[in-house]
């Protein structure tokens, strides 16, 4: 009844034609495939060997370098083989066909990493980092993914769990050893202190984590202002293409138009929004509503106004960029030197806008040296843990039984555990026995 785990293969390099093609395979049939298609009995592990790859009928497909990595000391934990061939379309196609006819199948997206996770080679946060490494478009994304791959999140999250385990050890000692002289009878104070510190750590992490989430997902920059201020033109200039429709008719932009850019090494989503004004037009009103929502969710907000008018808004927050447009239409002397002034139409001053955005990005990220939160999943886990922690602190305050406090701490620990692994009762008991002399 045994169903052998199957062997997977895939083109690991970019689409041919290219200089080379790297084909990777992983699974129990790797050695067999090596024998049948490369006519080599056994490849020396972790050495590049020149081999000939043959088709099912024994015809030569190509010569290339093969590297065999035996399990469990491989990325997936299974026997793995990588063959580097010439990067032609036909060679690649025939090579995959030959390998599949020898007992492999094409891997699903992410399947190699999934196998690495299943083999315990990576925890969940590291597995996520692999995907982020591959998807990185900006230096900042890459740097962060590398740190996460190196275990930055795992270390951070398990550190918090250890703090909770210590608090639990105190609580459990007071519950399970009430007769012991050494078991701390009054554990409230030290528990309250530990939980209090952790609570502020989590709150801080949720705040700072915003930034690391943005580094991964992209910072949001919204261009806001009255109709016909030139917002769409500015967007097109920043994007260096006609992303948004530009006309002279006020209210042309109805929906939010987003473009993805890298600026100063960061991924950024710049959005053009509907001009803000009172309107009877149902569609435009919805556009205004969406513009305000985009403004709310943005990290950086650019207020653009027509230099012939004066800028007024009660929605400006500290740190917002205020830019006057159409400066070619006014006397340069009349514009305040404090205000950044541009002419979006001919692109003059766009470099100054970019510099201002990059400067803002720099100040947003200056305090963040390592990833804290990079996915919504992490944020949810931490938020839930925090709410249990607050409940535990509330129980301590009201003097209700230690079992309630303990229950909440346990739940908080489990939430954090879901981010990487899990906490088990034995580790709590271990902490109890190592710190107290228990046993009458």
């Amino acid at each position, binding site marked *: 009844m045994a169903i052998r785990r199957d062997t997977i293969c895939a083109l690991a390099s970019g689409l041919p034609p290219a200089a080379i093609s790297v084909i990777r395979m992983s699974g129990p049939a790797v050695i067999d495939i090596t024998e049948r298609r490369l006519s080599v009995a056994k490849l020396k592990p972790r050495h590049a060997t020149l081999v000939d790859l043959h088709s099912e009928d024994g015809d030569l497909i190509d010569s290339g370098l093969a590297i065999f990595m035996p399990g469990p000391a491989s990325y997936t934990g299974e026997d793995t083989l990588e063959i580097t061939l010439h990067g032609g379309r036909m060679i690649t196609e025939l090579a995959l066909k030959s390998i599949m006819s020898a007992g492999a199948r094409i891997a699903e997206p992410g399947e190699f990493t999934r196998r690495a996770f*299943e083999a315990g080679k990576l925890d969940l946060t590291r597995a996520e980092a692999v995907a982020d490494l591959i998807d990185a478009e900006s230096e900042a994304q890459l740097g962060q993914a590398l740190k996460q791959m190196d275990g930055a999140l795992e270390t951070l999250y398990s550190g918090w769990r250890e703090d909770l385990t210590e608090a639990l050890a105190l609580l459990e000692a007071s519950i399970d050893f009430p007769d012991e002289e050494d078991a701390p009878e009054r554990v409230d104070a030290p528990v309250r202190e530990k939980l209090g510190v952790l609570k502020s750590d989590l709150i801080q992490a949720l705040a700072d984590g915003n930034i690391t989430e943005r580094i991964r997902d992209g910072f949001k920059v919204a261009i806001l202002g009255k109709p016909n201020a030139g917002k769409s033109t500015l967007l097109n200039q920043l994007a260096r293409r006609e992303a948004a429709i530009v006309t002279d008719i006020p209210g042309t932009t109805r929906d939010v138009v987003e473009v993805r850019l890298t600026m100063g090494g960061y991924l950024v989503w710049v959005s053009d929004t509907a001009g803000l004004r009172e309107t009877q037009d149902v569609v435009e009103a919805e556009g205004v509503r969406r513009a305000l929502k985009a403004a709310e969710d943005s990290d950086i907000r650019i207020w653009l106004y027509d230099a012939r008018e004066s800028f007024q808004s009660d929605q400006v927050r500290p740190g917002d960029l205020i830019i006057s447009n159409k400066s070619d239409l006014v006397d340069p002397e009349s514009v305040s030197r404090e205000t950044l002034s541009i002419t979006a139409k001919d692109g003059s001053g766009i470099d100054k806008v970019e510099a201002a955005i990059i400067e803002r990005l720099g100040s947003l990220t200056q305090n963040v040296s390592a990833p804290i939160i990079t996915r919504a999943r992490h944020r949810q886990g931490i938020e839930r843990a925090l709410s249990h922690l607050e409940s535990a602190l509330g129980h301590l305050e009201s003097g209700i039984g230690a079992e309630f406090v303990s229950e909440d701490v346990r739940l908080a620990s489990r939430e954090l555990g879901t981010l990487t692994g899990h906490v088990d*009762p034995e580790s709590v008991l271990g902490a109890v026995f190592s710190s107290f002399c228990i046993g009458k």
Partner: protein
Amino acid sequence: MQDDLNFDVIVVGGGHAGCEAASAAARTGARTALITHKISTIGEMSCNPAIGGLGKGHLVREIDALDGLMGRVADRSGIQFRMLNRSKGPAVWGPRAQIDRKLYREAMQEEILHHANLTVIQDGVEDLIVEDKKVAGVIGESGNAYAAKAVVITTGTFLKGIIHRGAERIPAGRVGEKPAIGLSDRLYALDLPMGRLKTGTPARLNGETIDWDRLEMQPADEAPIPFSYLTDQIEVPQVSCGITFTNTDTHETIADNLKQSAVYSGAIAGRGPRYCPSIEDKIHRFAEKTRHQIFLEPEGLDDPTVYPNGIATSLPREVQDEFIRKIEGLEKVEILEYGYAIEYDYVDPRALDSGLQVKALPGLFLAGQINGTTGYEEAGAQGLVAGLNAVRFGRGEANALFDRAEAYIGVLIDDLVTRGVTEPYRMFTSRAEYRLSLRSDNADQRLTVRGIDLGLVGPERADVFHVKQDALKSGRAVMQSVAMTPNEAQKLGWKVNQDGQRRSAWDYLAYPSITMMDVESAFPEVAALDQAIKSQLEIEAMYAGYIERQKDDVEALRREEALELPGDLDYAAVGGLTNEVRAKLELIRPATLGQAGRIEGMTPGALTALLAYVRRRPNRKRTANA
């Protein structure tokens, strides 16, 4: 074969596991034999004279809810009842009692010797009878062959048991008892995974030579709360225990002679329990402490023997004499029996299935200390499970299981067969994930119905149970039928949301700041309810919110428990498993995905691989246990 030597179930051993196993089997109607080499030691308490405590008291209540013996026998012999943790909530109250050893033994023997369907036989057991690779009975020292469909072995520390005291070595089970060589050879021949453990015991003192007047005394609770749901009142006279402390003089004597301790001389390889260290251990590991507490526990009303709880030791006799007499109140004490450490082999319980049956030999069940546990309560709980499932095996029925969300018994068995032990296993409340629902006050509500279905519960208990259930039901109905507005509640000084929502007495009771006394004074209908019912309802209301929140967890647990892993699963074919994880899975052969997840060292990744594999399997047919 003679009919009077022919049984459904044979239980070997008359300790706490053996008594519960025999009684459980007999209660279900099976023709049961309990074979012991000495009838007079049935129900003997070989270590400290106490039953219950945190987690352990919960187990006693659960055994009782399934109509087992331990709770009722303890109620007839308890001489100092105390409810531990009264300052905390009822979920973590631990019923505990000091026991008169003689009264306990007598009460247990009375139960066992007059038990329906149960024959007690005095004989040593020399060997198992194995037919068709299944156990078919046992051979006695007498030469008798006893036939049975299943055999439960509950022989404690008899496997290569060695007593250590200083340089003395005495092969033994307990002091004065000889180990059963033939049976142990047979068990070793099965080639089961084994480990070695140790445990220790203190000297026994003559209470008449203790200077009690100088010591702090700890009295019993004023109103002792019985273990058993069938006991109305404790009638045994209650006594106090003394409390004294070691001091720096004592510590010095022990430290000077540490090398003579069997444990510290390196003579003992087995691992001891972290929660019950010897006094040598305490002084060595916590050198900064200047004193350690000792409870002086009387072993009986008319027995002068005192058990000094807290100074287990394997030091030589003369060193025991010296350090004990340096303790306040014990300056002139007479030592009746010296303390010792005992080292023994146990069977790695991961070799057992969830019914405590040896996977390698169908029909053979193990319960108690032989599985690496410590404590009468842990032994009794295992005995009950093994006795019940031995009957079911003989009848061709699947194991009856209790899950972790249902009972401490479920936590105990699952921990043993899934995680194994590295020290003598003792129950703690912190081992139970669903501690707020697994309370000592509601063991009957959790388990008695199941006990009735399984045929374990007799008519007397069933009646008492149904009467109480009906009273609780109508009590809840009364509390839900009377109500008032938040405005009225505020006038009573209650802090509630002023949302205009009329709430029932039951809803108000769920507020942490509102007690049953408050509710009673506001609603005469509630005041009229029976006191015991009111107390129970108050506890229910207190935890209702948390238990509601745990429902999702419990459902997730049961979903994973429903995903069965076939007994012959080829873990090598699953792939993606590290050698370490695979070896553990092959040893334990978890019955369900949930159980697999609780194996020590199991990674989330490995579980994902297992889940994916099980989902891929074409035939997911249920595999019967029997």
